[in-house]
């Protein structure tokens, strides 16, 4: 880990090397350690140490970008030159909002020394405990346990500087029996809150209960969705809650703000400052993150904004600018996605999962969705499979495990049919954030196909 002083030094070297009208540098520092296991042993075990800078320069309203992880003077100067050369060629961008003046950001603590210091031996001990539990029950465990240190910094030529060091631990596990599987996952910026043994036991229990699954006719059923499945719904719903997608007509929110579209039990928001998630108090322009209510008791609320889209639409930034490029992610986007929420939450309700199951006369309990993809954006129609623990509910009790089903379902309509909301929020890591979601009971969910296992 570089620390604030050295990160500031990198930023100053970039700013000093630039002769552009405006210059911005976003710095990503990463120490990522990940232990992967399968068939009850560790088969992959990796570490990465990386620091990268994204340089953006503006000549008037002409903008260019360069990314590098060569932090030598030569490397940083080359990045500034490349960004400047790109800016010179670029036509004027009429919507370029300029870089922000220094804006105060209240810090949020999200750095845990124990997580930062977690060793390969520590992770092997925790993973080993899951594998031994599984072995004792005659099933096979697989999964990944990651403990990382991130540093984020934004600096610009107007004097803005923001720095946030943070830790993250996340564990996912799938346990397989002969003809069934179970899943569990957790995440926190404090490794002590990721209970490997407990998650392993949860996945093992699901796998054992799922043995000998029976085929079930596809159709529309009431469902109890475990928080893992609900996380997928919250992810799709919030990934379309950016001002650009809404403006382009490519979101379920387009033209529907203020309408009651979902059950009054449903509230969804984004909060980058909540220490119960994985806080990051500023966005990638250095603006403070604000809580945004995307759905308020079933009523469509606001999309999130960066400064560009705020300026276009006469709003203020909510602190949701994404990096122009994320040098630590292998994805190379086809261009900016516009502002997006990174810290989504679906509000908790008052029911236990057992109460939801007890309220269903004939329906399904679904642990998790797999390979979900957008079929149509207007109503967020999604297709995907169930996975790792799907069960039939009869007369208020789980009776038999069922083979996995394919669904093709509008997530907006699904959230309109919510009858009960779980009282516990579970945390799942999603890229640069943690998403929190409860279990849900829905009156109807449309399964359109079936598979053979």
């Amino acid at each position: 880990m570089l620390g604030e002083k050295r990160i500031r030094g990198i930023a100053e070297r970039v700013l000093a090397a630039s002769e552009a009208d405006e210059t911005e540098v976003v710095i990503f520092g990463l120490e990522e350690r990940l232990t992967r296991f399968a068939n009850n042993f560790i088969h992959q075990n990796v570490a990465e140490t990386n620091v990268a800078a994204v340089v953006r320069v503006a000549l008037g309203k002409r903008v260019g970008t360069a990314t590098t992880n060569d932090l030598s003077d030569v490397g940083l100067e080359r990045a500034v030159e490349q960004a400047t050369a790109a800016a010179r060629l670029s036509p004027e961008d009429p919507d370029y909002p300029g870089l922000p003046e220094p804006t105060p950001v209240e810090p949020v603590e999200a750095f845990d020394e124990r997580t930062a210091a977690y060793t390969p031996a520590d992770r092997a001990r925790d993973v080993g405990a899951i594998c031994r539990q599984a072995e004792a029950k005659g099933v096979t465990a697989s999964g990944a346990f990651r403990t990382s240190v991130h540093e984020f910094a934004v600096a610009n030529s107007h004097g803005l500087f923001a720095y946030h060091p943070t830790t993250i631990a996340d564990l996912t596990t799938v346990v397989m029996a002969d003809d069934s599987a179970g899943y569990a996952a957790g995440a926190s910026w404090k490794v002590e809150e990721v209970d490997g043994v407990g998650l392993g036991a949860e996945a093992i229990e699901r796998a054992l209960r799922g043995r000998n699954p029976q085929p079930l006719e596809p159709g529309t059923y009431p469902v109890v969705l475990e928080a893992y499945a609900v996380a997928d719904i919250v992810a799709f719903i919030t990934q379309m809650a950016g001002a650009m997608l809404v403006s382009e007509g490519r979101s379920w929110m387009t033209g529907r703000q203020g309408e009651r579209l979902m059950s009054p039990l449903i509230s969804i928001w984004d909060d980058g400052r909540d220490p119960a998630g994985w806080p990051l108090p500023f966005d990638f322009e250095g603006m403070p993150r604000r809580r945004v209510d995307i759905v308020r008791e079933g009523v469509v609320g606001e999309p999130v904004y960066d400064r560009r889209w705020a300026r276009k639409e006469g709003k203020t930034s909510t602190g949701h600018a994404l990096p122009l490029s994320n040098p630590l992610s292998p994805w190379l986007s086809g261009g900016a996605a516009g502002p997006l929420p990174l810290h989504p939450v679906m509000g908790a309700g008052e029911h236990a999962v057992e109460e939801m199951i007890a309220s269903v006369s004939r329906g399904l309990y679904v642990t998790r969705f797999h390979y979900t993809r957008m079929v149509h954006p207007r109503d967020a129609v999604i297709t995907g499979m169930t996975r790792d623990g799907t069960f039939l509910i009869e007369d208020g009790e789980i009776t038999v495990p069922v083979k996995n089903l394919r669904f093709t379902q509008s997530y907006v309509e699904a959230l309109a049919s919510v009858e009960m909301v779980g009282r516990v929020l579970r945390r799942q890591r999603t890229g640069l954030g943690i998403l929190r979601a409860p279990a849900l009971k829905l009156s109807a969910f449309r399964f359109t196909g079936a598979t053979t296992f």
Partner: protein
Amino acid sequence: MKEWTDLALDTARAKGATYADIRIVHRRVQQVSVRNGAVDLLAEHETVGFGVRVVADGAWGFSSSSRLTREEVQRVAAEAVAIAQASATVGKEPVDLGPPEVHVDTYRTPFEIDPFGVSLEEKLALLLAADEAMRRVKGVRVARGNLVAQRERKTFASTEGSYIEQEITEVGGGIVAYAVDETEIQQRSYPNSFGRDQRTGGWEIVQAMDLPGNAERIASEAVALLTADPCPCEVTTLILGPTQLALQVHESCGHPTELDRVLGAEAAYAGTSFLTPDKLGAFRYGSPVVNLTADATVPGGLGTFGYDDEGVPAQRVPLVREGIFVGYLTSRETAVQLAKMRGEDPERARSGGAMRASGWNRIPLIRMTNINLEPGEWTFDDLIADTEHGIYMETNRSWSIDDKRLNFQFGTEIAYEIRHGRMVRLLKNAIYTGITPEFWGSCDAVCNVDHWRVWGTPNCGKGQPGQVAHVGHGVAPARFRNVQVGVMVN
């Protein structure tokens, strides 16, 4: 480079590694994208670093860093060994890589016009011309265009004595138009969805695409789709156009033949596979016209290279022959495991050369190379003319498949109803679904070599931490009988 590779391998050995390799990778990417007449991104990306992979105490360890200094190379090599030793505390069978692979060589993908020699002005002008042509079509809300040039230089060295230098140059490009009205959103992409098609080679790839020349056509198609009839819900004959067929091959043949996945290595993430080792050489995967091959040597393929990332030469490996499942994508370790499972001599087990890492900071995993559906006999016109009643679908819009790669459902951007041997009616929101071996078993015609080319899939995800691979698929349009189409209620 040799001083760095020697230092890493010597350090790893001294710390107790029984095998070690190092990859030093420099990647440069230039990206130009435009949206509605304005520049979205004009960017140069550069990443450099090294990764050291070791076996110690019979288990794997890997560490990587962006800082290429003497102290850091030593620290990272030692850390890789310490990580392997931690792995060994929750270990099983010691890693067996089979016979050594010793190669000293250099390789580069050929190109006619260096894409980094073409000015940014020219690239930008090309995209803006296509963008303008798309937006001239009334009803287009958003137009986007995208160009990518990438050059990766990598050095591989191992304690077995390999030293391989490679240079891979890729070029990609594409445009997309979105049409929106009160109730409907439609998109059309060219030449492929996901922003671009991509190949190894030079700027000549983008010149051949003629993005401006296709812009008005795809924009008009997007607008026409707004008012098109929805795809009916029925069981019918399906003809897949080339890029959708490429994705079908990718998901239902490429991924399930990855042997690491078959053996459980991806169980917790992407899943496993229905193509279990007991099926090898015996299972009917498709009809007799179905021949699938993994070919890392095909010119211009996005999955084309000289050596994979554990230093094994590029190969051509049959996966399906006349419909029978006959081969896997393999690594050194999984080739040995498979031989042992089948009672064959592990000393003679050789990797098929499919281990690829998405960068210096990732371990190689079994990845697709170019997974090709071999050409058949038909001309495309004859195929349509020979079809009494059916649907033609092209350009992927959504894709989903279960975790053993059996039940799939794909949606396409565009479709046409076929009646009495002619394409007669435009259809929107087309979807088809099936079970992999039933679907390929229903394939009764594949178009000939004149219609065959390699398409690039630059967005194949796998592994934890995530890796995105660039893979290729050679295909010609093909026909499938008795397919369920249309699932969504429109």
